[in-house]
């Protein structure tokens, strides 16, 4: 059964091809149906595979299937091949599952759009690529998926290509991603150059032979790729702009799945990272810095999708913090829960927009909870989850990360502290969003107000499903202080990423020395510190919950109790506010440093160097010859005696030469 793994990506591919070729000519409903069922089947097979996999003993939960040889050149060989192991199947489940619901949602959301078939074509292509990314059994195929999702992201961001902002944003996303891919590509080269293979199994098998510097370099290069795809500092700039795409796209690609690919990749390459502590630290620091940086921007944004975008960046930062301290499982856990609640938040925002005739500015909303109750009630659990309120999924995963940030051998108190502050900001801006949108008076223009209506079933049902998932999704990873045996997800992932609890010791599939060592290291830390740290963990958890509550409270004070307070505060800290609302001016700086300077360099090279210097030299030779020709022809005066004169001169030269030879030789 596991051999049928290729079916998982196949269905979206089929959907893509069908919709792409004949989508325009067939009935719209059919298009949507094809798109959704392709993903649905894919989801279905993922579940089958999942159950197939957990039937197996944890040690042998690994299966590869090669379809055909792809690029073979000399000793270089890559295949189109997929692998099933806990990590990939988890990702496949998340991807196909979330996509499935978002596809359904999209049927409603996009129903009036002229590009409807195109939309589903792209979306199916995206899922296909994403599944390639997560199921690939080698770096190159992963890279294919990696670039493929980037392409889909580009296409979908620029879906409404008539809008300049949309096409600009798409291009920006692609190019920035390419910067990351550059790193990824170099990482791949380095891996192949040193290990002679790109197959995951073999690479991780041989990885221990690498020396630390090399491993660190590879790890950092791969992380550059991850940072590009997952919008980490300093390559995050494309993600906020990516909100130009249709909202379900933002939900699927720019929140739930694609952007988390970086986390997945690091988790996949945990062997390499565990060998390179410096790289890990970099990952963690970048992660936490991104978390607080993006959160701080999120505090002031008024565009509902932008807030969510920065929130996504911030949450991705958490995930990197998690994997950066060696807690790959925790990172993956947060990835999963985040997919649920962030996907939901975006879909909710989409529903709000749907109701508000496309309005995005929160300052023009308010009081929507009565008008679109389903949206509101599904929105709330997601908000609570992201804010880290105990009992909701986000709490479990985020807390796991924070705890690991503090306690892991790669962790540090500061990492934890910053993470907690960021968590506080998160709860503030999320509740700010909630309050501004759903509470208070409706500030929308009358016209819009009249049209506010709840979304159709096809949209609200996915909302409901996801809201359920946002609540219960966390219970697969209950911290061991609440009962050791319940961290199902850590247990499940352990064969691949090592790490958690008792199970870690037992895993056998990758029982190679270093891996085992790394895993045991993680495990040992946990157990050795188990007893003393239990109380510590409780304390830290409490602190973070309190911080989150303070955030909520402040939001309540600012946006419910005293709505004029934000203005005052903004006035007081004007500089800070300006910096924050303008996103630290990073876009402008980038524009100046990279875009403008590149353009002017291009022009300088073109006009200055190419036309003037090179072509100037080429034409110069030509002109010189022609000029010389013009000069030389003037010797030909037409007078017979001047010809004789030149003959004599030439004759004397000839004679002179001969005579000199005759005399001196």
């Amino acid at each position, binding site marked *: 059964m596991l051999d049928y793994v290729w079916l998982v990506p196949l269905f979206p591919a089929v959907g893509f091809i069908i919709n792409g070729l004949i989508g*325009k000519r067939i009935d719209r409903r059919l298009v949507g149906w094809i798109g959704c069922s392709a993903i649905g089947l894919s989801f279905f097979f993922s579940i089958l595979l999942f159950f197939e996999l957990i039937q197996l003993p944890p040690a042998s939960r690994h299966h590869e299937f090669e379809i*055909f*040889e*792809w*690029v*073979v*050149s*000399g*000793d*270089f060989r890559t295949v189109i091949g997929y692998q099933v192991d806990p990590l990939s199947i988890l990702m496949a489940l998340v991807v196909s599952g979330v996509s499935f619901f978002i596809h359904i949602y999209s049927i409603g959301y996009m129903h009036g759009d002229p590009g409807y078939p195109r939309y589903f074509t792209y979306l199916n292509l995206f899922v296909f690529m994403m599944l390639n990314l997560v199921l690939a059994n080698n770096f*190159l195929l992963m*890279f*294919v998926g*990696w*670039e*493929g999702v980037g*392409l889909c992201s*580009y296409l979908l961001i*620029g879906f409404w*290509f*008539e*809008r*300049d902002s*949309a*096409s*600009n944003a*798409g*291009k920006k996303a*692609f*190019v920035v991603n*390419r*910067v990351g*891919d*550059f790193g990824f*590509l*170099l990482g*791949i*080269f*380095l891996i*192949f*150059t040193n290990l002679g293979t790109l197959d995951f199994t073999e690479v991780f098998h041989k990885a221990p032979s690498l020396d630390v510097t090399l491993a660190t370099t590879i790890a950092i290069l791969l992380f550059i790729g991850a940072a590009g795809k997952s919008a980490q500092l300093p390559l995050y700039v494309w993600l906020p702009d990516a909100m130009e795409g249709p909202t379900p796209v933002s939900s699927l690609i720019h929140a739930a799945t694609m952007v988390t690919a970086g986390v997945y990749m690091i988790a996949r390459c945990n062997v390499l990272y565990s060998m390179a502590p410096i790289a890990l630290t970099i990952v963690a620091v970048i992660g936490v810095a991104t978390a607080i940086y993006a959160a701080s921007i999120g505090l002031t944004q008024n565009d509902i999708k932008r807030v969510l975008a920065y929130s996504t960046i911030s949450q991705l930062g958490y995930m990197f913090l998690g994997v950066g301290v060696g807690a790959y499982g925790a990172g993956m856990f947060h990835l999963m829960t985040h997919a649920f609640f962030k996907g939901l938040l975006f879909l909710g925002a989409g529903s709000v927009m749907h109701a508000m005739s496309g309005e995005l500015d929160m300052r023009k909303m308010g009081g929507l909870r009565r008008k679109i109750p389903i949206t509101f009630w599904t929105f709330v659990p997601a908000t609570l989850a992201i804010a880290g309120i105990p009992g909701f999924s986000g709490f479990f995963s985020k807390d796991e990360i924070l705890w690991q940030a503090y306690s892991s051998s790669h962790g540090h108190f500061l990492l934890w502290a910053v993470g907690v502050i960021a968590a506080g900001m998160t709860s503030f801006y999320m509740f700010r969003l909630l309050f501004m949108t759903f509470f208070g008076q409706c500030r929308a223009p009358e016209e819009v107000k009249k049209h506010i209506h709840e979304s159709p079933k096809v949209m609200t049902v996915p909302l409901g499903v996801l809201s359920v998932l946002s609540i219960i999704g966390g219970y697969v990873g209950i911290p061991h202080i609440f009962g050791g045996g319940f961290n199902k997800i850590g247990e499940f992932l352990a064969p691949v990423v090592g790490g958690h609890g008792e199970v870690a010791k037992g895993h056998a599939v990758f029982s190679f020395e270093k891996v085992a060592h790394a895993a045991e290291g993680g495990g040992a830390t946990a157990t050795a510190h188990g007893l003393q740290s239990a109380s510590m963990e409780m304390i830290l958890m409490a602190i973070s919950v309190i911080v989150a509550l303070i955030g909520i409270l402040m939001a309540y004070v600012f946006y419910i109790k005293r709505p004029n307070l934000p203005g005052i505060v903004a006035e007081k800290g004007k500089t800070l506010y300006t910096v924050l609302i303008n996103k630290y001016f990073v876009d402008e700086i980038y524009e100046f440093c990279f875009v403008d300077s*590149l*353009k002017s*360099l*291009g*022009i300088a*090279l*073109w006009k200055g160097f*190419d036309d003037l210097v*090179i*072509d100037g030299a*080429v034409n110069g030779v*030509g002109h010189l010859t022609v000029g010389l020709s013009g000069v030389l022809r003037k010797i030909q005066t037409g007078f017979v005696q001047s010809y004789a004169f030149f003959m004599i001169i030439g004759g004397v030269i000839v004679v002179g030469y001969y005579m000199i030879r005759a005399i001196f030789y």
Partner: protein
Amino acid sequence: MDHLLSTIIFLPIVGVLVLLFINKENHSAIRVVAFVFSLVEFILSLPLFFLFNNATHEMQFQEVVPWIESYGITYHLGIDGISLLLVLLTTFLTVLCILSSWSAITVRVKEYMISFLFLETGMVGALVALDLVLFYVFWEVMLIPMYLLIGIWGDPKRRIYAAMKFFIYTMAGSVLMLVAILALYFFNLKATGIHTFGVLELYKTVIPVGTQYWLFAAFAVAFAIKVPMFPFHTWLPDAHTEAPTAGSVILAGVLLKMGTYGFIRFAMPLFPNAAMVFLPLICILAIIGIIYGAMVSMMQADLKRLVAFSSVSHLGYVMLGMFALNMQGVEGSVYQMLNHGVSTGSLFLLVGMIYERRHTRMISDFGGLSKVMPVFAVIFMIVTLSSIGLPGTNGFVGEFLILLGVFRSKIVYGVMAATGVILGAAYMLWMFQRVMFGEIKNPENMKLKDLNMREIATMVPLVLLIFVMGIYPKLFFTKMDVSVDHFLKGFKAKYEMKGEAPTPRLTSILTVESVRERVSPSSGTN
């Protein structure tokens, strides 16, 4: 089957003869005849692919006929895995070019088709010639029809300049190669006593390092101009821009490959020691070309110029890969030659299609075409992505292998070249965006018609090829594996056999005394 290669070379000439007997006003008949001939040509070239023996590095389908006995010049043809693919590319692109000229060329159709068929003969001939003189003959023969294509059917404004520049520039480079060919011949004659211009025999000659420098330099300049490598590239934008669409396609698709092919077939295996000495220079120029081409390309206002500069960038990869001198680099490089032919050829075709509709190539005149020309947009997108080198398309496989190969042989070069990946995406997408996206600002663009069936028929094979080559490259790699491997082994073997290095004698005028020795007084009589 014995004379398959000859048939392929000279079939277009037969086509020319047939065309000569058609009334010049009868455009449709001329087009049909030219198309049929090119199609038959392509079909005839397919057996090369299917009957090709993957397992041997020997030249296949060889034909040897003495031509000029006193010099040992032979009419020697043959293909290996490297030239096989390029021959196919040539015959394939020619069909599409003729198809694409259907409505673009309305004046002097007969002369146009004649030029094109002549061009095909020259190109195929140069690719399959295994005798240096024969190669040189075909190499130059290519120039004339191309020159006419640019000069007669080109853009009225600067076509003459462009045509002249193209011709003289390439000619200036290749004449030096002629001298080098002769020098090589006489060197071999002296060393072995065999009169031959055959490449296969000359491969075996061990040449002193000092001599190799000069010979390699002469060959390299000729080929570098054709490629074109960085400081020799300025003929390219002009020629590309001014040429008619099909001319640009062939120019980019095949003619530029002659340069890179020349390196791999002649310059490198003949003079490996010199190649190694010049390697850093060539690599650095190639890298400069990659980045420079991309940067300049980014700012172009003219679509064709933009694509032309992108060729500079892409060909930089090809050169770099070749000089990586390992399997991945060289194979990637050969593959990238094909890719560039397919994707840049397609780009030119597409640009030609909108040029035909709007009679402008300025990017600023377009915008928002996606809306009115959705089919065009999709194809354009695919081709753009192929040019960027997106995985799944052909461009990726070549680019990846090249970079991998380069990275393996010298990391620094690999890293520098890889930056081109970023820039490539930037300029191509920006161009795409400016042409296809946004509002339609120019009212003239509102009325544009989408591609018709003929145009779609022209593009579909290319698009399919883009994907086939991207997804199942093995089909092509198996053809060239052994040949490339043999190339590398031969290179290495010859490199290690380097002869002792006496100083090259190039100052004959100063060595009259030695002439006197040679011509002793007694030899002056009859």
